[in-house]
């Protein structure tokens, strides 16, 4: 695996991690919280702020909120530079379960919440 | 440094360095040397095998062979920087007791260590517990 953990901040960076409970990608905010919305991520302009942010992240790891935090390089618009992180931010680039509601509409199976939200996403 | 001896029957006792002196030592972290040294063991004396770190599975192959080689010997102990999961496997590979230093004992707590020996944790198809001394129920041996 390529090492995507940037060591020094070129343009800017943000901290990405996985939420312990859901495993979803989360981002460190300026207030030290974690958000699933990348637009609320703390954009780190330089090495000093990056270092500070990673300290927060380390604490959050120790407190078992998140796991696997690392720095992601971003461009001037705040978008991740590498495709791997672009995919982490945006989710899979492919539409999964495309026939789901299609077929399910002909059955009487109750929809679970997860499934309902998926159907919402697809419609 | 004080040591605990956790036996396969679940008993725990303090162990002195003198106790350890009676036991022959075999270092499984260097398997090749260990397997040669194994041939020279006194089969009538206890043996203590030092296991490598928990992910170094070579120790279990050494231990299994020591167990087989010293079939008449009741006491085959293991020591090293042990973890509870590791001694579960060590008992299944034929160890009869684990030597655990006090600090390590404290860190995992008595429950953690004893749990490594609970019949449920010991379930497995190929587990071979040295049953003369143990109180562990019969395990399925598929082999």
């Amino acid at each position, binding site marked *: 695996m390529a090492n995507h953990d940037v060591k020094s901040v070129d343009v800017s960076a943000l901290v990405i991690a996985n939420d*312990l409970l859901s495993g979803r990608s989360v981002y460190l905010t300026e207030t030290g919280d974690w958000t699933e919305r990348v637009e609320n991520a703390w954009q780190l302009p330089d090495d000093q702020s990056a270092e500070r942010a990673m300290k927060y992240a380390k604490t959050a790891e120790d407190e078992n909120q998140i796991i696997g935090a690392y720095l992601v390089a971003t461009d001037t618009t705040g978008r991740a530079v590498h495709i791997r992180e672009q995919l982490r931010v945006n989710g899979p680039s492919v539409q999964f379960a495309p*026939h789901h509601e299609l077929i399910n509409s002909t059955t009487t199976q109750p929809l679970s919440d997860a499934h309902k939200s998926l159907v919402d996403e697809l419609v | 440094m004080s040591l605990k001896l956790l036996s396969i029957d679940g008993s725990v006792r303090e162990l002195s360095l003198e106790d350890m002196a009676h036991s022959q030592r075999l270092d499984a972290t260097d398997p090749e040397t260990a397997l040669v040294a194994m041939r020279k063991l006194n089969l009538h004396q206890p043996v203590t095998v030092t296991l490598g770190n928990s992910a170094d599975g070579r120790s279990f192959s050494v231990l299994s062979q020591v167990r087989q080689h010293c079939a008449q010997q009741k006491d085959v102990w293991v020591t090293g920087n042990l973890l509870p999961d590791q001694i579960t496997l060590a008992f299944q590979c034929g160890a009869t007791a684990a030597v655990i230093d006090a600090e390590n004992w404290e860190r995992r707590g008595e429950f953690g260590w004893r749990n490594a020996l609970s019949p449920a944790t010991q*379930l497995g198809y190929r587990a071979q517990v040295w049953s003369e001394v143990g109180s562990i129920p019969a395990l399925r041996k598929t082999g």
Partner: protein
Amino acid sequence: MYQYDEFDQALVDQRCLEFRDQVQRRLTGELSEDEFKPLRLMNGLYLQLHAYMLRVAIPYGVLSAEQMNKLAFIADKYDKGYGHFTTRQNIQFNWPQLAETPDILEALASVQMHAIQTSGNCIRNITTDPFAGVAADEEVDPRPIAEWLRQWSTLHPEFRYLPRKFKFAITGSANDRAAIKLHDIGLRLKRNDAGETVVDVWVGGGQGRTPKIAQLFKPAVALSELLPYLEAILRVYNLYGRRDNKYKARIKILLAETGLEKLQAQVEEAYAAINRQEFADSLADLERINGRFIQPDLTESGAIADAERPVWAMRLNALANHSDIAPQERKHYTEWLTQCVREHSHSAHASVVISLKKHGDIPGDMTSAQMRGVADIAQSYGYNEIRVTHRQNLVLPQVAIHDLVSVWRALQQLKLAVSNVDLPSDIIACPGLDYCALATARSIPIAQDIAQTIEKVESGAQGMTVNISGCINACAHHHVASIGILGLDRGGVENYQITLGGQSDQAARLGDRMGPGIAADEVAPTVERIVHFYKQERLTGERFNETYQRLGKAPFKSVIYGEEHVAKTA
């Protein structure tokens, strides 16, 4: 199918309790991630790019209808309504929540399933021929032996921390559909002159960074000797396999570095030293396991085997003229019969392959509704049984020939009557960079693009395989495809390397690398050109690899890179 006994059930139940406790301790913070990670991995729970991923074992690819329904339940209740079948004949769920994973394991245990040893440096799920027990060309049914090995290898205390993961595959047929020569150990079951089952043991196959074809390590091992002999191989590997470099840790490297004869001698020595008493009951165990395989009663469907077996091709012809098929349907039905229906050892039955490769869909993905639908079909027409293939498809191993029309109609409802099995669009694709934390490039969108591009030109390119891996780990077996595609990262841009001429059967062969990688949007048109070129150049009846061998690399390079480029670099 094998039915658990009390011991089997107690073992998986115990694992559920243990894992529930471990998750609880993680959630309260008693266990750190460093301590928890090896524990969750031992239960198949990975952390991927977007979420946790749970890999569930499907031992030797055999599922009951009830188990398939349970997978659908899990997909709906704990995931996003779908699952992904893998080349290891397993299923992966991509979105479980940590706190719910113990419930998932419990749901699995309630139908005799688990996620044990689907990760880590241990003996992984054992794979076999998806037509095991039903193939017309089979000599020995590999399933009981696979179950025997599953039990031997499950929680084996000596082999929980091998230098690297370890994969077995087994076949009981001369036509190898289990890719046994690409596994750490491949077993070929056959009958000797006395009619007893014996086993050829192949060692050291594998893919990844250094692909190797296995070598015949010991022929004709008696069943009574098999487990001690395998134990000896594993012991030697455990002791001497490299642990300093994970790319050199598989047994294929130990074999290459030690040499065949020397490694054989080491194994013989270890084998001679094995305590045979431990294996005294091994044949009785196999007997016990055999007794727990419930074989379907094929007379139940009222189908009676012919005294003389009709020639299969003629049989298919006759079936295509079924009176229930309307004239406008005939073409599709005939296509489906030809591509998806296989000869069964019982002449009144057939095996049906269900393609999970509808052009444009994600290879191996299946929605919960489709899972339920297939379970229904298996219940109504398939003696309750389903298989998962290493090509990420499903098989209904036994369907009465007179039920084929009904099965076809039911599959159509589910969008699963896709007649491309063994055609180039029957692509193996790993999850790649859309999910996998190890990936260097995406595989799924490339597969979708290829399948849609070649849909119109692929007919007749039977047996031509296209496999796409998203990194050098080669989970999608790209080394052994007619067209292998490997996704790499070239300075932050996805780039795809092409190999040609690989195959994974009894004549296993690694593909040849064609040259520099190509851009993502070039892949599908390139594959299309190769398919087209093959169809144009082939002699009658010639398979892709035969054409490729006959013509050599050069013309194919021109097809891939264009005449000019080849001339320049020649």
